[in-house]
């Protein structure tokens, strides 16, 4: 909301660098992962967002100062039995958004296990953001902001309460992630599972590959 224009630059601006990041969304079923992505990518919101099977793939770019950050977003299915597929998607991801529903305590607990799993099995340098979605339903709140904030602080996560419905904090969240990502290193081939991509948009970015790992 705050920077919609910045978040959705369609024309190629004068940004000198283009960074590409793989971002994965995780979280319990029906917490609003797909809605967050849809709001971020298309600026839309559907009351009845179709449940995701397997995973959905979307892309979006944000402009940060002189850098264009391209997000390659993998929106995963929330149901527990799709859990076994998750590694395929978070493997090699530089960023992850773990989403929970502020009106549902269980989803917060599940978010915590996702965070743990990511910390353990994903790329060590992965930027994890915690998103308490459905902030518009504050009257039904079950997860206190402070509780989540404290948890995020403990685990050094980015944290925001968002609302895909009202667009609150959605773009900010992605922008915050973009900011936190090592801009100089858009092409990470050094993820834990090593699923690299072969596109080199800017030659100069190749040189700083190792930096990411050492972070």
């Amino acid at each position, binding site marked *: 909301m705050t920077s919609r224009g910045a978040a959705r630059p369609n024309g190629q601006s004068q940004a000198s660098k283009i960074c590409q990041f793989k971002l994965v969304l995780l979280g319990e079923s029906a917490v609003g992962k797909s809605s967050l992505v849809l709001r971020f990518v298309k600026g839309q919101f559907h009351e009845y967002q179709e449940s995701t*099977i397997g995973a959905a793939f979307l*892309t979006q770019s944000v402009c940060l100062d002189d850098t264009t950050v391209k997000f390659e977003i993998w929106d995963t299915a929330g149901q*527990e039995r799709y859990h076994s597929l998750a590694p395929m998607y978070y493997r090699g991801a530089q960023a992850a958004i773990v989403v929970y529903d502020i009106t549902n305590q269980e989803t917060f607990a599940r978010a915590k296990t996702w965070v743990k*799993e990511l910390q353990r099995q994903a790329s060590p340098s992965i930027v994890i953001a915690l998103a308490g979605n459905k902030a518009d339903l504050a009257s039904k709140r079950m997860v206190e902001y402070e509780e989540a904030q404290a948890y995020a602080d403990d685990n050094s996560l980015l944290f925001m309460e968002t609302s895909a419905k009202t667009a609150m904090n959605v773009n900010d969240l992605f922008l915050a992630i973009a900011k936190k990502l090592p801009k100089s290193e858009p092409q990470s081939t050094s993820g834990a599972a090593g699923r690299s*991509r072969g*596109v080199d948009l800017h030659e100069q970015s190749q040189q700083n590959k190792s930096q990411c790992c050492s972070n």
Partner: protein
Amino acid sequence: MPAAGSEGEEGPAGAGGGPVAEQAGSGTPKLCGYLQKLSGKGPLRGFRSRWFVFDPRRCYLYYFKGPQEALPLGHLDIASACFSYHQPEAGAAAAAAGDEAAAFEVHSPNGAVTVLKAATRQDMTYWLQELQQKRWEYCNNLDAAKRDSRTSPTPSDFSKGLVAKDNPDLSILSQNASAERARNILAVETSPTDLVGEQAASQPAPIQPSAINFSLKQWSTEIKNSMSSLRKGNNENRKSIFYTTEEWELLDPTPKDLEDSMALEEKRKHLAEGSKGLASSAFPFDFGRIPHKTRRPLKDMIGSSKNRNSSDSSPTEWYSGNGNKLVSELQLKYQSQQEELEKLKKDLLSQKELVRLLQQTVRSSQYDKYFASRLCEGVPKDKLELLHQKDDQILGLNNQLEKLNLEKDSLQQEVKNLKCKVGELNERLGMLMETIQAKDEVIMKLSRQLSECEDNTSSQGGAVNSSVATCTNKELQELDRLKDNLQGYKTQNKFLNKEILELSALRRNAEAREREWQAKYTSLEAKLCQIESKYLILLQEMKTPVCSEEQSPAREVITQLLEDALKAETSEQPEQAFFKPHLVSEYDIYGFQTVPEDDDEEKLVAKSRALDLRSLSLSENREISTGVKWENYFASTMNREMMRCVELKNLIRSGIPHEHRSKMWKWCVNLHVKKFKDSTVPGYFQTLLQNALEKQNPASKQIELDLLRTLPNNKHYSSPTSEGIQKLRNVLLAFSWRNPDIGYCQGLNRLVAIALLYLEQEDAFWCLVTIVEVFMPRDYYTKTLLGSQVDQRVFKDLMSEKLPRLHSHFEQYKVDYTLITFNWFLVIFVDSVVSDILFKIWDSFLYEGPKVIFRFALALFKYKEEEILKLQDSMSIFKYLRYFTRTILDARKLTGIAFGDLNPFPLRQIRNRRTYHLEKVRLELTELEAIREDFLRERDTCVEKRDLISDDEEDS
């Protein structure tokens, strides 16, 4: 009436006598039956018995060698045909007059005339009526269908599932209302015989169908017809005839009756002649019933009865009947009077004789007395005394004589009186006779008139006229035959009138349609010109690029075109609405939104996609479409059960038409789950459902969460109150109870939702059972989705084999396409391809099984192989993979690749691959699970208590 001999020929056709027409399914009875078709050439030309079946979908009348035949010999296009009675050729007329009566012609638009012959006239009428009706319905539906090739012109008779109910309103245009009325008026009541209808198939073909079967039933129908149609007009006539029969009972006189009446007639004439000129006085006969009529002059009476309508003949007849009785009474009385007279005359004669004798006695006694007086003087006293005695005697005798004379006089007077009476009687009789004669004449005249005018019964005349009596029977038959013919001609006339009416109505409709088309065509042409001119401007601008980015005319044109493109569907000028081609409707026939509501970028793409699809389907329709093949297939299976065969497989691969999909899917599902179904108790699904609605299970929560997140772009699932949502819940819940190992897996909801579009709740449930338990390998939807993951490995192998170039291209850019294709397999392409193709894939999937998924997955890649190969980075490849499946619109091409180019495609190979990969994946998963468990244990011991409860963990 035709010769009585024909009754004997009532062969196999008349046998049976079951119900007239079987109710086929839920709809109207199927129109089918035996007819004779004139075919062959030269000397072989003749009628051949054929089994005819009317197909309402195409309005064709197919004919088979017999009801069990699979392939029709041919068909008649009823929609554009007209019918007429068959007029026998002059030569053959005499021989086959009876046969031809039941023959009719079907004129095809190309000028061909097919001569068909029904077993009976009644059958023929039935056929003609039905065919007219079908043609009417079909042509009107054609109007209503708005020529939208994507909606089926005929309503599906198998309305199941959510989509199948979505038939377009088949409202009949108002201009047809009057024609419709007229049709109803002209309609002829018919009831088919046993040779029509499905049950007729079980009967042998009529061996001698040319025989005329005049059953009583038919006769009654014809009478019924005549009564119902002639209710207003000459009904009175008929009434009078029937009354006549009641009164006279001479319609079919026996010879004895005739003799009697003849004798009576003779007698009456005699009497009339013999008793003329008698004056009337106290006449004992009772004329009180019609007193004023008797007094009317005869001429008047005749005149008035002539003037009167023939329907009034009944009183006259009654009167003359009464006269007969009077005459015979009169005759009897007259006879007794005459006898009395004779007796009196004899009496008189004997009295006269007596008087004469007495006079003689007196004379002789006087003579004696004279001698005695002379003697007295001289004779003794005793003699005188004797004389005195004699005198006394004489005196007494004289007295007696006087008395007798008096008596004689009175007798004579009496005789005179009696004679007067007799004369009077005779006169009366004569008058009556004259009356009777006159009346007889009137009757004869009237009956002759009657028979002449109406070809009516001559029984009256025959009864009266002794000379006609001998040929009465013959005439009666002749009369019946003529009446029959008349009835036939009337029916024919009525039918032909209706035919003319209907044809003109159809012609009017066609003209209107043509005008409409013309208008539409013109408006379209104008639009095309506009677009073309804009396009040319654009081209021109492109050729000479203007440097300034700001305001080039091209940009303007482009923005305008953009506006137009998006506007077109929303704003429609009302006056143009009628002529505007409805190229893209809001929802497709499956209920999916064609254009997303709130996405401008997507909108344009979706619109162009919808237009492409439309143009594809339009051009496809011009060729012999799969629809025709399906019609032919159904025509061939009209008489038998559907069977698994290569023909059907190929047909299904080309796609099942919308209107048949419900039926075919149900059939396919039943084919696969038969063994499951057979082992379950009746009401199995209901029991499961009951159970599920009463109790919660771990799956219920997730099911509830996903209900409204299932195909939200389909109108049948778009709101909580949608019918589909409830059904979806039921099926998913029931399944979670049937298969607790799977319970509910996200994705199953889409499968059920698609199935529910064409199937009823319970069938959709069995469809899910088919997919999950019959088609897919074990563990496809269970906890770890093991089977699904295995299939992705198998698919990779197949890709490298069938599309090696593409496979290495993906390898090169490290693109794991299984991240995308995983979905295709799990939910069988739901949401991945355009709905037209989706349902075609499902058609063959439900018939053939899971191999179809591999075929189509490979085909989709092959279809766009070149495009993918052009992409040179992983992100754009992924981006492309995400949506490219929706850009594929040509189902025919795709199917061609899937089932042609990719062959050979042995299932064995897939099975082997599956077994191979299963072990590997299982190992990897166990490894992963071990790591995860290690980690969880570690964390448990570490810090906080766990409060995580997920549905799946509750399961275990």
